[in-house]
């Protein structure tokens, strides 16, 4: 299991390649890639700054991954989350889950994202025109996370 918080971009193909290398038991890989949009709440967004709590972020992500591994039979999990300044079309987050069959992979991937969205200490600040504002949480994220409990 790997958890990484970084400013640099990531190469999805290379990451998945490394994760599955030399493991003939893996029959399914599910991945999710979060991307910066240029629109939020009706305003055009030109830039996003991601702040986090170094130390706690990694611990929180590892806890979420452990929780997923206790619920489903998984061979490996990778979570990469970027921080710092990002622009529309940039990749923000990557979750990859490797398992024997697709059911576990799909479910665990969705679970990981739902929990990450409500439990990992990241905060987005967006720039629209000359103004910046902290992104507000969405009730739908809480609802999505609750369905797993």
């Amino acid at each position, binding site marked *: 299991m790997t958890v990484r918080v970084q400013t640099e971009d990531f190469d999805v193909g290379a990451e998945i390649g490394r994760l599955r290398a030399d493991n003939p038991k893996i029959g399914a890989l599910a991945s999710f890639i979060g991307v910066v949009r240029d629109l939020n709440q009706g305003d055009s967004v030109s830039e996003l700054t991601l702040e986090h709590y170094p130390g706690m972020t990694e611990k929180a992500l590892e806890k979420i991954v452990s929780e997923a591994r206790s619920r489903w039979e998984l061979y490996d999990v990778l979570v990469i*989350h970027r921080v710092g300044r990002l622009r529309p079309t940039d990749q923000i987050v990557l979750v990859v889950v490797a398992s024997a069959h697709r059911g576990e992979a799909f479910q665990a991937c969705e679970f990981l994202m739902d929990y990450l969205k409500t439990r990992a200490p990241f905060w987005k600040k967006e720039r629209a025109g000359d103004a910046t504002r*902290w992104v507000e949480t969405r009730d739908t994220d809480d609802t999505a996370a609750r369905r797993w409990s």
Partner: protein
Amino acid sequence: MKPGDSAAAIVRIRYFARLREALGCSEEDLAMPAAVHTVGDLAQFLRSRGGAWAVELAAGKPLLIAVNEDMAAAEAPIRKGDTIAFMPPVTGG
């Protein structure tokens, strides 16, 4: 309080994102007032500073609190040397 005074129950408090900006403070070391035993007590003490502290940490405002990098409830105890983080709801992903 003199440096190295072992009787002083010092905790470190950290503030993140919107809270950090609204309070104008990213972290502080606090000698715990005698009445502060839990996370909830600490929030109450900080509110009593008034101004932005009272507004931002007002009861009922959505707020996450971590003790030593683990999410904690209001009843969680605070001990000397702990790091307590006050955070707005998270918006990653």
